[in-house]
């Protein structure tokens, strides 16, 4: 029995084609569907629609009523001949994420059916082993939940007054932090546009990481201006160190140098500021920024653990990258003296011999903590104790 649908008083100028389409979807090409309706001129409208869609149509009288017999054409299914399936939306399913994403998948959602003839869109980072981390989706969700609004999360109006020399030190430190966070923004931003959309968890995580860094730059700038200071000194050595991060073309190596070693070191620095900064605003900023940076470190670690699992020999390349960076920076001063002194003054809080002595000890301890943290992370990546200690010590004196 030929199926029948009644489009009632709905015209094809008002959406009735959806009813017909649905009816035709239930029959194979070549099959017939009967359509009846009561809107004036519906037969004419249906004939025009069928012609445009490649379906056959004829009119018959059945039981005293005009009935359209629609014969399903092959065009609607023909469009999807040779279409390709691009994995599966849910990354936890087996085979959901391809080892290599094809350029012909273009911008389609992972799991979509992609029409043959879709233009090739080339993304440089199209291999899973180059960029993947199983924890990316979880880290992204955490990042979204942990976003904070600088306008309300920080009590900018809390009254405090620092000795001028300490306030100057804060301005110097903020100047240094801003240029370091610029590098931490630009490195993931550059990779972001090169990641194939198939790896959307990675794409999303990089995007929110960029947003985190933009927020850090905002709050450091705002703290710098809080007591009417202008940005202080930016050294050639500091920027030379950061430039080596920008120049690294490999996603994994860049993530290793920036996130695991650099931002990892920064987490120590920010925790130090949270604990020892002389004013409440700097302490609040440091606490919030450290939380974000810790997530960036977690992504870097997670990706490298993934990559090393696929390619254990990649560990040698990581060690070489630290050595090369150290060689490249051999002729630079590393951390500028002004930043080092600013940290002592900040940790001192006041300009007295006793306070400076205490601040000096704290900064020495910070530098030791930073190196120890790097060593722990390197050991987690599978370097033996000796190698980890050696590489941790080779890390740039500029911290990031």
């Amino acid at each position, binding site marked *: 029995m030929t199926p029948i649908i009644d489009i009632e008083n709905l015209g094809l100028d008002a959406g009735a084609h959806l009813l017909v389409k649905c009816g035709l979807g239930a029959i194979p090409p070549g099959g017939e569907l009967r359509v009846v309706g009561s809107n004036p001129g519906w037969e004419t409208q249906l004939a025009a629609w069928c012609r445009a869609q490649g379906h056959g149509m004829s009119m018959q009288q059945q039981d005293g009523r005009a009935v359209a017999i629609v014969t399903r054409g092959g*065009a609607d299914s023909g469009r999807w001949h040779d279409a390709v399936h691009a994995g599966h939306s849910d990354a936890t399913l087996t085979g959901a994420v391809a080892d290599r994403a094809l350029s012909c998948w273009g911008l389609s959602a992972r799991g979509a059916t992609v029409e043959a003839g879709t233009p090739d869109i080339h993304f440089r980072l199209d291999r899973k082993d180059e960029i993947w981390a199983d924890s990316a989706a979880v880290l992204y969700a955490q990042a979204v939940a942990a976003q904070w609004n600088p306008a309300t999360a920080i009590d900018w109006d809390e009254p405090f007054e620092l000795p001028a020399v300490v306030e100057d030190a804060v301005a110097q430190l903020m100047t240094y932090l801003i240029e370091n966070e610029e590098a931490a923004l630009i490195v993931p931003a550059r990779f972001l546009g090169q990641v194939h959309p198939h790896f959307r968890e990675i794409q999303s995580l990089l995007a929110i990481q960029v947003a985190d860094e933009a927020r850090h730059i905002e709050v450091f700038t705002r703290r710098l201006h809080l007591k009417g200071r202008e940005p202080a000194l930016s050294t050639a050595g500091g920027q030379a160190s950061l430039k080596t991060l920008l120049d690294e073309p490999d996603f994994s190596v860049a993530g290793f140098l920036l996130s695991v070693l650099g931002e990892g070191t920064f987490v120590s620095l920010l925790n130090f500021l949270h604990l020892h900064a002389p004013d409440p605003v700097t302490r609040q900023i440091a606490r919030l920024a450290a939380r974000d940076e810790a997530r960036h470190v977690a992504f870097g670690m997670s990706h490298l653990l993934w990559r090393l699992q696929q390619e254990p020999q990649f560990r040698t390349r990581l060690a070489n990258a630290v050595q090369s960076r150290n060689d490249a920076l051999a002729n630079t001063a590393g951390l500028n003296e002004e930043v080092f002194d600013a940290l002592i003054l900040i940790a001192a809080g006041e300009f007295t011999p006793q306070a400076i002595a205490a601040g000096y000890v704290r900064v020495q301890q910070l530098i030791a903590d930073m190196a120890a943290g790097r060593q722990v992370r390197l050991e987690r990546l599978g370097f033996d104790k000796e190698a980890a200690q050696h590489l941790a010590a080779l890390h740039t004196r500029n911290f990031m």
Partner: protein
Amino acid sequence: MAKPLLLGAVAYAPKVVTIWEGFKEYFRRHDFEFDYILYSNYERQVEAQLDGSIDLAWNSPLAWIRAERMARARGLEAHALAMRDSDRDLCSVLVARSDSHVAITADLSALAGQVIGFGALDSPQANLIPRDHLRAQGLFAGRDYTARRFDELSGKHGDHIGGERAAALALMAGEIDAAWMIDGNYLAFAREGILPAGATRIVARSGSYDHCNFTLVSGISAASAEMAARFTELLLAMDWQDAQVRPLLELEGLKTWLPGRSSGYDLLIRAVDDEKFYDAAGNILDPDYRY
């Protein structure tokens, strides 16, 4: 390089270049030399075909009738080689606002004294066939109703649907009482929102007619019969499932090419004669026609 089969086509829109460049590439892929010449209007194209400047023409239905008449007057014969699936059994519809007198009575006599919108003077679907349809119902422009023409891009035989769109806009603006358009454009204007859902009603429809075809005039073209046959064969082999070919078919508005037929032009032939558009030898009669 072998001498190519030369096709004439009318440049009614910028996409025409994309379409025929695509066809040229398709034919080249199949080792068939093909080229095209674009004309600004169908009259010039038909004359070019009859003087042997082109081997084949992608003709509007009106151009087909003129080519057929001019060929016959010279003792030659025109053939419709192929057409789109969407060229068969079209009809024109007269659309009125749902709340209007003519829509409610559903009687053509209600058109008396009304202003009816038509497309371009040379549009088969929005002028010639509609006028003929009303005449056959005993309704004459100027006597029973007022005709308002929306003339856009004369010489394009209504391929440029601007005239029909302008009439639809005038209908919804209340400037006219009803408007003629091809059935497919009625649905297209609804999708565009020009005709709001349910705001209009079809009050009359013409009989069925065919639209464009590839026309060959035998005995005049320099191209051999084998070339025309190979052209037709390759055209009919264009497959909607082929991702390389599908964009061309989409641009040209078809799912599959069909063999040409000349049986679907009777309505337009009657209209051309009654409207005194062309004479039996294909000469242009309408003094108002500019192209």
